[in-house]
């Protein structure tokens, strides 16, 4: 609505230093060296409110209320000049709005000044440091002679009851197996293609349990199809896997 350039000419304002619209308005209004007649008050404030909103610091309700007051202020004269021209639907007369704005600015200013005072006071008190040492151990516990009942024994029984309850089985439905049988089959076949025989642990011992299990499963499949045989001399001993030549099936792990 108004030229931004004029605003820059009139006063050099760093909007970032103001911490709220009342803060901004107060400092503009009370600046001795500038005449408010020269300043695009409405635009400055509107721009500032916009900036706050961009930064997520303005609550819509607070902003609306504030802008209504400013708008009413800026309408003041025209309303005075055109008495009874149109009955506005807003409940508040501009003169009334200005009064409220003044009251709000004064209220704000009271807490701004109180805040400054608190801030200074805080500075003057920061040098006092308090001890934060824990109590010596002998003072940390209640003495048996003076102790009184403060806890309910049922609390213990309840806690133990909770512990007796086995926890629910974790829901694994969202997990999908990441080891595929097909893939393990092709791994086994390619190993057997290069070597006639191999030791299972040498080859797959460093894989995780799941991968090893699926590989065993794949091995069973190869055995069933007659592509490989395997033997294990003793429980938990090494497993030797051998490629089956034609006509040599089912020598199997009976060895």
């Amino acid at each position, binding site marked *: 609505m108004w030229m931004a350039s004029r605003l820059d000419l009139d006063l050099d304002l760093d909007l970032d230093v103001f911490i709220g619209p*009342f*803060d901004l308005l107060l400092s503009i209004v009370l600046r001795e060296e500038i005449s408010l007649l020269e300043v695009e008050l409405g635009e400055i404030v509107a721009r500032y409110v916009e900036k706050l909103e961009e930064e997520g610091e303005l*609550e819509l309700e607070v902003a609306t209320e504030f802008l209504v007051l400013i708008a009413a202020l800026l309408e003041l004269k025209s309303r005075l000049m055109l008495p009874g021209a149109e009955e506005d639907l807003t409940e508040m007369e501009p003169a009334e709005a*200005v009064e409220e704005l003044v009251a709000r600015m004064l209220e704000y200013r009271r807490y701004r000044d109180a805040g400054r*005072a608190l*801030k200074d006071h805080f500075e003057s008190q920061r040098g006092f440091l308090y001890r934060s*040492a824990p109590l010596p151990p002998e003072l940390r516990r209640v003495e048996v002679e003076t102790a009184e009942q403060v806890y309910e024994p049922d609390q213990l029984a309840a806690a133990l009851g909770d512990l007796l309850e086995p926890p629910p089985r974790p829901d694994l439905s969202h997990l999908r197996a990441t080891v595929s049988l097909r893939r393990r089959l092709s791994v086994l076949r390619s190993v057997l293609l290069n070597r006639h025989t191999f030791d299972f642990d040498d080859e797959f011992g460093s894989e995780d349990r799941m991968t090893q299990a699926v590989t065993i499963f794949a091995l069973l499949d190869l055995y069933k199809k007659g592509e490989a045989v395997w033997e294990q001399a003793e429980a938990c001993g090494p497993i030797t896997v051998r490629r089956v030549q034609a006509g040599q099936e089912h020598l199997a792990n009976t060895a």
Partner: protein
Amino acid sequence: MSDEGVKKPVLEEVPPLQDAESALGGLARKVESLLFLSNQPVTEMSLAEACEVELDEIERAVAELEEDLAPGRRGLVIRRVGGGLILASDPESETAARRLLSRPRTPPLTQAQAETLAIVAYLQPVARPEIARIRGVSSESAVNSLSERGLIEEAGRSRFGAAIYRTSPLFEKVFGLDGLEALPDPSRFDPTPDDEREIRERLLAAGEQRSEA
């Protein structure tokens, strides 16, 4: 087991000195011990109960101790804070203390925090929207950081579900206030009639000018 050796005081070996113009009386000594051990303000009533003496005896002992710990005499001072007594180190040693304990200085209050704290301190209990209304700006981050620093705390919910705040005991401690009554009189911050007139006139002038544009 860790504190044997600490437990056995040198005391028993050395006969107590009796000269003692400069020594404290027995009850004042006890009060000093108790304040040393406690890191919260202690009321005179609790001291009296702990020492099993009458309140006026404690008051005399506290007066003796206060005189003895008057500023500039020792490394400790006694302060009345939050309705009780507490020992603090003399501010003179702050820099050395921070070096020794490698504790950074607490950050100063920002202006937004200071304004918000003033509103809470003077109007408590006060709801968050009221703080925003007075400041003209959402005060969420100031409220949160004051809360985080433990200077204000939630004191329930308003009928409309907004959080209500009040200052905490820590506030009184770090501001060295002996209760909220010790806050500076808020009328000190009231605008003078001249201020008020000036603001009103300048605003009206701006309004008139604007509408002529």
